[in-house]
Each structure stands twice: as C-alpha cells, then as structure tokens.
C-alpha cells in the first residue's frame, strides 16, 4: 500500500490523513440523515420516570422482602374477602340488601307488584316504569335515584362497599353524596362510576347510552377504557364500542356531530379527515378537554391524526414544560396528564 492510499484509508478509519474527496462527497450528501443533536433526552427520562412510578410496586416486589409482603397481602385479601362476603338474599322488605322505593307518579312495578306509595327493591329485582309512572330509589345512606317513565332498572348489589344498579333502558337521575366508587350503574355498553356527583343517564332501546353530568365527576368505563366526565360535560356509549370522547354540552353542534362520527362510525379516509378537521376547527379553548381526551392512548387515532390534534390543542392551550410533541403523539399518557392540569376542569375526588 502506498503512502497516499494509506492516508486515504486513515481518513476512512478515523478522519485523519488526507481527505478522500469521494468519501467527503458521500458525507456531505448523507449529512441530511444525521441524528439531530438538538433532540433532548429529557422527554425519554420523563417517560421513564412516569413508568417507574406506575411500576414501582412491581419493582419493590423483586426485593427479598417478597415473602413477608406476600403474607401481609394474603392477610389483607382474606380480610377484604371476609368483609365483602356475599350476604344471603333477604326477603323483600328486609333492610339489609334492598333499597326503599317510593312512587312519584303512576304505578311503577317491582317485579310484577305495583308500588302503591312505597316498596323495597331487593338485589336481583326489577323496577319498571310505564309511560305515566315515575319512582324514587333511596340508595342506602348515600343518595337518591329518580327513575323516569319508560325505564327498566335492576338492583345488582347493595353493600356498604358496592352499590350497583343496571339501567337496561330509560332514564335515571342520580344524586350521590359519598366517597368515589361506591355507586355504579351498568348500562349495556359501559359502567357509570360515581366519583361524587349528580348526573342523568339515559339508555335507548338500542342500548345506546348518554351520560350528562350536572355536578362533580362520573367515570364511564368498559374493558379497561376509562372516560372521565366533568360537570357540564357528557359522553355517549354504544354497544360493542364502549364510551366515546367526553364533550361539553355547550360545545358547537358541528363539533358534537363530527365527534360522534369519529368515535362510532366506520368512515372512509376522506370523511374521517373531514370529521377530525371539523372537530379541531370548531373547538374552543374549553373544548381543549375533548381534544386532550382524543390524545389518550386508547382512542385509536393514527399518528398523523394525533399530530393534528396536538397542534390544535397546543394553539388553544399551550402545553406545560416537560410535555413534548413527539412523546404525546406517540401516546404518552403521562404527558397528557401533565397537560390536563391546564384544562380548567380540575380533578375528580380520590377515594
């Protein structure tokens, strides 16, 4: 190998020696693809931190304290199971696993029995109203539920730790004053979880539900999907699809119509793009809450859709420090949570 060739080899190897013009041309042409040194590692660390917080209990389980921890867990589990053991189904009229029902209008039925002035709805029983009847249920010591005409309600559980109704069809108005997650209403496609609130829940004959929150917060959940609905907002839920994106009831009609299409209809690419465009363009600052929900992981938005949503939301409500566009677009719910604090809706009560 001659000196000149060795010098060129050195340039290929470590950049020393005589520069090779061809390699320089390649380097120059390909510089376009080089890693962007301005990219920060901080969003990655923020994501790692959030994952570590969520996984903290798992990490701790790997320590040698595993055995005592499991023993304690087993004792706690046994205690919980004991306290929540099923109670024997009492006869109608018992005060243990039944709720008082009073007639508000017409002749509501419990099972096949008409309620004259009041009666008791036991676990497993059905309360039904016709077109002219209404009823009021006293939910233990935690609240009241008014049942509108043409409704069908079943009592599924009446315990100190869980109070659960099923609304098969019709409309109920719930007024609950209790710690969160004590009162539940099952609908054909989602469960309404009380987080300290007043709300109206309607289910039509097709099983489509509409939840409207008038005070506090309600969570709609199904198959691990959770949708938090604040006061003034509503959400639709449909069989086989679950709850849609929460929206404020005073939002522009065009936004609500397009949002429903996005959530529940199988749209072609052009229609879908148009629906999203309408949602984004019609959104007011207050509707940032809806856009933020669209960015949540389970909503199934494509990357390009998430980018559009991010940009519109950022224009309405600039993201806080530590929130990166790339990470949110990639589905970083932790950063979505940081942004939530700026939406002006507060947070539901914790148990």
């Amino acid at each position, binding site marked *: 190998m001659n000196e000149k060739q060795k010098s060129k080899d050195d340039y290929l190897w*470590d950049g020393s020696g005589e520069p090779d013009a061809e390699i320089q041309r390649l*380097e120059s042409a*390909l510089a376009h*693809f080089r*890693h962007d040194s301005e*990219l920060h*590692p901080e969003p990655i660390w923020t994501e790692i*931190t959030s994952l570590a917080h969520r996984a903290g209990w798992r990490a701790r389980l790997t320590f040698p304290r595993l055995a005592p921890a499991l023993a304690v867990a087993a004792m706690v589990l046994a205690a919980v199971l004991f306290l929540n053991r099923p109670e024997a189904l009492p006869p109608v009229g018992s005060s243990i696993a039944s709720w008082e029902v009073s007639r508000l209008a017409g002749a509501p039925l419990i099972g096949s029995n008409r309620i004259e002035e009041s009666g008791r709805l036991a676990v497993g029983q059905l309360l039904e109203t016709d077109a002219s009847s209404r009823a009021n249920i006293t939910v233990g010591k935690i609240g009241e539920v008014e049942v509108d005409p043409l409704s069908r309600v079943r009592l599924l559980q009446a315990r100190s730790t869980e109070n659960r109704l099923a609304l098969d069809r019709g409309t109920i108005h719930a007024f609950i004053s209790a710690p969160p997650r004590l009162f539940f209403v099952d609908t054909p496609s989602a469960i309404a979880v009380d987080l300290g609130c007043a709300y109206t829940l309607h289910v039509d004959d097709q099983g489509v539900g509409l939840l409207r929150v008038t005070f506090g917060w309600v969570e709609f959940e199904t198959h691990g999907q959770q949708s938090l609905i604040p006061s003034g907002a509503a959400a639709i839920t449909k069989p086989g699809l679950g709850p849609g994106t929460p929206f404020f009831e005073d939002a522009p009609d065009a936004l609500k119509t397009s949002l429903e299409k996005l959530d529940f209809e199988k749209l072609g690419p052009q229609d879908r793009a148009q629906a999203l465009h309408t949602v984004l363009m019609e959104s007011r600052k207050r509707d940032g809450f809806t856009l933020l929900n669209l960015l949540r992981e389970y909503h199934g938005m494509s990357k390009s859709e998430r980018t559009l949503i991010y940009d519109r939301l950022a224009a309405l409500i600039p993201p806080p420090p530590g929130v990166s566009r790339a990470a949110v677009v990639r589905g970083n719910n932790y950063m979505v949570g940081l942004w939530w604090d700026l939406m002006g809706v507060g947070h539901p009560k914790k148990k």
Partner: protein
Amino acid sequence: MALAKTCEIEWKTTRLKNLTDVAGIDFGGSINESRSAAAPPVIEISEDVRLVNAARDGNRTAFGELYARYARVVHGILLARVPPDEVDDIVHDVFLHAMRKLGSLRDGAAFAGWLAAIARHRAADFHRRSREHVELPEDLAETRATHPEPHSILAMIRALPDAYSETLILRLVEGLTGPEIAARTGLTPGSVRVNLHRGLEQLRARLGQSEKS
C-alpha cells in the same frame, strides 16, 4: 402525579449544576462531541460501567451521558433498517426500553452491544408491525422527490449486507470514527475496519453502475 412533579422540580433545579460538571454535554442543547476526540475503547467501557450503574440508580445525568454517547449509534443502526422518517421515534423507543430493562443487564461493560441489539430488534419489530398495516416501499430512491441523491445513496447503502450498511452509515452519516464504532457497537476494531473497506468498495461499485445507467 404530585410525586412526579416534585421529581421534575428537583431535577430542574439540580440539572444545571450537574450538567455543567459533565464535560462535553449540554443536556439543554446540543451534544458536543468531536470525531477527533475519540476516547480509547477501554476508557469508554469503564466509563460505560460507571454510567450504567448510575443510570440504574435513577441518575438522570448519567442517563443523559449515555444518551449523548449512544444516540448517534442507535440512530445509525436504525437508519440502516427503517425509513428515515421513523428513525427518531424508534430511537426514543430504544432508549426507553433500554432504561426500563437496565436492571437485567448484569455487566455494564456489555452495554454497547446490548443497546445495539435492542436497536436491531426494534427495527425488526417495526417491520413486523408495518407488514400488518402497509407495505413499505423497498426502493426509497424512487419514492423521494425532495432529495433524490441523498436518498438514492442511502438506499444503495441499505441494500448492502447488514454488517456493511450499518458500519458505513455510522461512519458516513453519523460521523463516528472506526474506533468509536467499535467501542459503541461491541464489534472488534478489526471487524469494523473490514466492514468499512468492503462496504465502501461495494458502494463504489453500485454508484459506478448507477452513473453508467
């Protein structure tokens, strides 16, 4: 959330002091690392061990140093395998995955090869997932209009055997030197040298053919 915020504030107040102590790294801006300032591999490895141990203990500064040291390597490995538009996102994924699994890495000295393997796996995952959705065009040169020459050169490099394309991209695109490539991929310097020479030879042949046609 509150705990995370506390951590964030703590991090922000301490990071400036910490990072100014770390030579060559500006966590809030660019990464200053010149090609000619390549450290000898043995020092890089012992430094890796220190950084890996510190990052494993939750030290952000150490993580920042590992990122500064390896981001270009991960980027280059991915660029050899996935569409350029997707590379940044997958770099993010690779570091995220690596940091989460750092506890399973027994020997910090093996970090370079371990991280490179994660990057290659992630690239393979990307193609598996992509097949479920949309077939990616094989010939990038035909699909790019804005920078035809760089894309056609990149496509030619990517068409070379993996060992050659990866090493050439690390050298020609990411600007790493041969010794740096060896230290940061776990390959021997001899292998890197051979890959560079043979890869460049094959690339020249393809470029020549391309010019003729």
